[in-house]
């Protein structure tokens, strides 16, 4: 669908030379702002005839900030981890045809030189379907989106009957990417069949899972794709209004979506009689004040209505949603898939994935890996492929111990099960969930009990407090884990944790409580020995749990610099300059400051 001329226009721009600088939340944090300014300066000072072009992020966060230079006749080259002082040099060399410093090129024109993207590990295993435009186009330009085939999907959809649109999604087999994997067409069909003159469609961009940011990345890098999907959804169910629900903590995402809505309205993709059809539809961006539970669909609706807590389903939002009207809620990525399916045709979509779950999914790989980032792979890809091939495996000298999948309500999959093919069902049967697709890699420097404690305290803090099992039960679980990590628990407590966890999971009102015990249950399932070690030997094998570790001075390394004695707030360290220092365990409060302060690495945790 993207013709060669269009692609060239996008790649090289009207002046035949485009320098792409990614401007999105994550690249800005890595210093892309300075890079952007510097590139503009260099281009002006040296009179380079190039267009400095703002794009979204590719998801290759490990090489932020990156820039891409593309001049007609030369392969577009991507430079990772650039520093401002290198830029002049890079631009000069590239202009002269010397690509040797590039991390990769988009495609090769000859032999030799830097590898093409399809040859490098972090790209090779990906199938960039919804994220095709990320890092390629200017997210704030509707024209660029149209150039890549944008809003063609909407045109096609508007030529069809509503039932036909739903039928297309049905044959595609698209399932919700927001967590539960509910068939999208079914949701639409139920809402479509409701007799009601007012219906709503909502794009769920709350994304509260810490460790997952694919929705933010997609909406910041290609907001029109999400919007197009939402308009199609609106048409299919017969809605008159759409709402994009975004957190105030992610302001750039909200700004870009707002800009997209405005531009689309100007060009007649929104408003009355869209593209001369008789379909009227408008969209508003809603900035939420941020609470994890608001990602849950009934809580999200309640939040828009000015209340804040989930309610028992049924009735489901598709029949009884916002202000009591039929409402379809879809995830950002689901909607982007909808738009892309209509643009490329169903055949392109169903090529990938498994029998039960078609298509691709974006996964965020973070934590203890070499190449953190967002990778789009077919559903059913092995965990191994994501963690080791794409993300490069563990950091030097460490060993991957487990992968936490699905955010705070997901579970930990141990390293032995890395061959598992990730789809909704298989993950669930192993105690995790797909969730929004965040993978946090845990290595041997992390303690699994501490990890469970972390997630439990997260869900406890995020519990809305409406129903009893989640509100009180999670408090007990959290206290229990606190006792475990302080070495004060008994083996009986572990049994209680198991029983209580199961009870909370089964009897809570919403899925937050329903999944909140997952981290503790799954770590109990695969890492029970670590729990037992904390109880029986009062020892933390990974040396993380503060109350169970001791700090000691390695006499071979200590040079008597007195740094540690000076930072110690309680005066537990003694020793005169030049002599090996000693820690008095009766006084030490295990704050760990000496460990940070020692310039010779002589303080050790034992």
């Amino acid at each position, binding site marked *: 669908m993207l013709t060669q001329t269009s692609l060239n226009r996008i790649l090289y721009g009207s002046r035949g030379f485009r320098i792409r600088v990614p401007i999105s*939340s*994550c690249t*800005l*944090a*890595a210093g892309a702002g300075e890079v952007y300014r510097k590139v503009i300066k260099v281009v002006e000072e040296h009179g380079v005839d190039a267009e400095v072009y703002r794009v979204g992020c590719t998801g290759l*966060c*490990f090489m*932020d900030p990156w820039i891409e230079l593309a001049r007609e006749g030369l392969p577009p080259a991507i430079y990772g981890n650039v520093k401002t002082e290198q830029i002049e040099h890079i631009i000069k060399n590239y202009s002269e045809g010397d690509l040797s410093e590039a991390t990769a090129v988009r495609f090769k024109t000859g032999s030799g030189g830097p590898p093409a993207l399809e040859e490098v590990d972090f790209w090779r295993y990906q199938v960039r379907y919804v994220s095709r435009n990320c890092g390629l186009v200017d997210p704030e330009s509707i024209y660029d989106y149209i150039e890549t085939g944008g809003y063609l999907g909407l045109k096609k959809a508007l030529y069809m009957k509503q039932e036909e649109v739903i039928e297309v999604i049905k044959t595609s087999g698209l399932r919700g990417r927001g967590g539960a994997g509910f068939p999208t067409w079914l949701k639409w069909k139920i809402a479509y069949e409701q007799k009601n003159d007012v219906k709503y469609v909502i794009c769920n961009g709350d*994304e*509260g*899972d*810490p*460790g*997952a*940011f694919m929705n*933010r*990345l997609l909406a910041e890098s290609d907001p029109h794709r999400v919007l197009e999907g939402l308009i199609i959804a609106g048409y299919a169910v017969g809605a008159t209004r759409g709402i994009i629900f975004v957190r*105030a*903590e*992610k*302001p750039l995402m909200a700004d870009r979506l707002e800009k997209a809505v405005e531009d689309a309205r100007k060009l007649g993709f929104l408003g009355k009689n869209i593209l001369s059809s008789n379909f009227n539809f408008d969209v508003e961006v809603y*900035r*939420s*004040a*941020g*609470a*994890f539970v608001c990602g849950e669909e009934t809580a999200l609706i309640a*939040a*828009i*209505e*000015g*209340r*804040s807590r989930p309610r028992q389903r049924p009735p489901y939002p598709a029949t009884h949603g916002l202000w009591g009207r039929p409402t379809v809620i879809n995830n950002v990525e689901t909607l982007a898939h909808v738009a892309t399916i209509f643009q490329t045709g169903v055949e392109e979509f169903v090529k990938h994935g498994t029998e039960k779950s078609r298509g691709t999914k974006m996964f*965020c790989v*973070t*934590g*203890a890996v070499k190449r*953190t*980032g967002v990778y789009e792979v077919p559903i059913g890809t092995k965990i191994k492929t994501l963690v080791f091939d794409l993300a490069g495996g563990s950091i030097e000298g460490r060993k991957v111990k487990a992968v*936490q999948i699905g*955010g*705070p309500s997901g579970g930990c999959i141990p390293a032995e099960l890395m061959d598992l093919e990730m789809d909704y069902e298989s993950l669930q049967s192993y105690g995790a969930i797909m969730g929004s697709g*965040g993978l*946090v890699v*845990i290595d041997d420097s*992390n303690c699994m009990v501490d*990890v469970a404690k*972390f*997630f439990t305290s997260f869900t406890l803090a995020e519990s*809305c407090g409406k129903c009893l099992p989640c509100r009180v039960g999670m408090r007990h679980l959290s206290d229990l884990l606190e006792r475990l990590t302080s070495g004060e628990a008994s083996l009986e407590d572990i049994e209680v944790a198991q029983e209580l966890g199961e009870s909370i999971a089964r009897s809570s009102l919403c899925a937050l409580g329903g999944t909140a015990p997952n981290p503790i249950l799954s770590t109990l399932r695969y890492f029970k020995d670590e729990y037992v070690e904390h109880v029986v030997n009062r020892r933390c094998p990974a040396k993380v749990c503060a109350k169970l570790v001791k700090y000691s001075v390695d006499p071979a390394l200590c040079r008597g610099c007195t740094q540690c004695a000076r930072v110690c707030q309680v005066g537990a360290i003694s020793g005169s300059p030049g002599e090996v220092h000693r820690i008095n365990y009766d006084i030490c409060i295990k*704050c*760990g*400051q000496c460990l*940070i302060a020692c310039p010779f690495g002589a303080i050790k945790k034992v």
Partner: protein
Amino acid sequence: MYRGRLNPREVVGEVVSKYGCDRGRLVQILQEIQKTFRYLPRESLEEVSEKLGVSLSEVLNVATFYHQFRLEPVGRYIIYVCFGTACYLRGASEVYEAIRRSAGLSNGRSTTEDGLLTVEKARCFGCCSLAPVAMVLSSDGSERYVHGKLTPQAGRRLVFNYRSKARE
């Protein structure tokens, strides 16, 4: 504590007339008020409850439910240390402790005595690949910086830099 001599009740009046007496706009109204005062003064909440005709407890319910809202005055710069999963596993707690110590905060206080800095925990900013991350916001919302790949040392530098910046 208020900036200038703004009267919370007047400000609420303006904001409410902008959004209308619509209960459904409660979150936006509070957001707007917080933009003005950097936090939600008690009087403003009382005024909102009167104007919208919802009980004060309900307004407080919403104000305490969302992370964005603050009921206490804050420092000039707020340092949010991310306690999301990726950041936590990469040592956010050590960074947080280092920042608190060098800001001189103890006993559960979160704002320094000179009123320049506030240190708080936050949830994921979506920059997990740069973990551990801290976001610094000026309390009027005009400046926003994200700092990635922090260490305890970098945390201490951060406090130093923003403290001198706040003094300016």
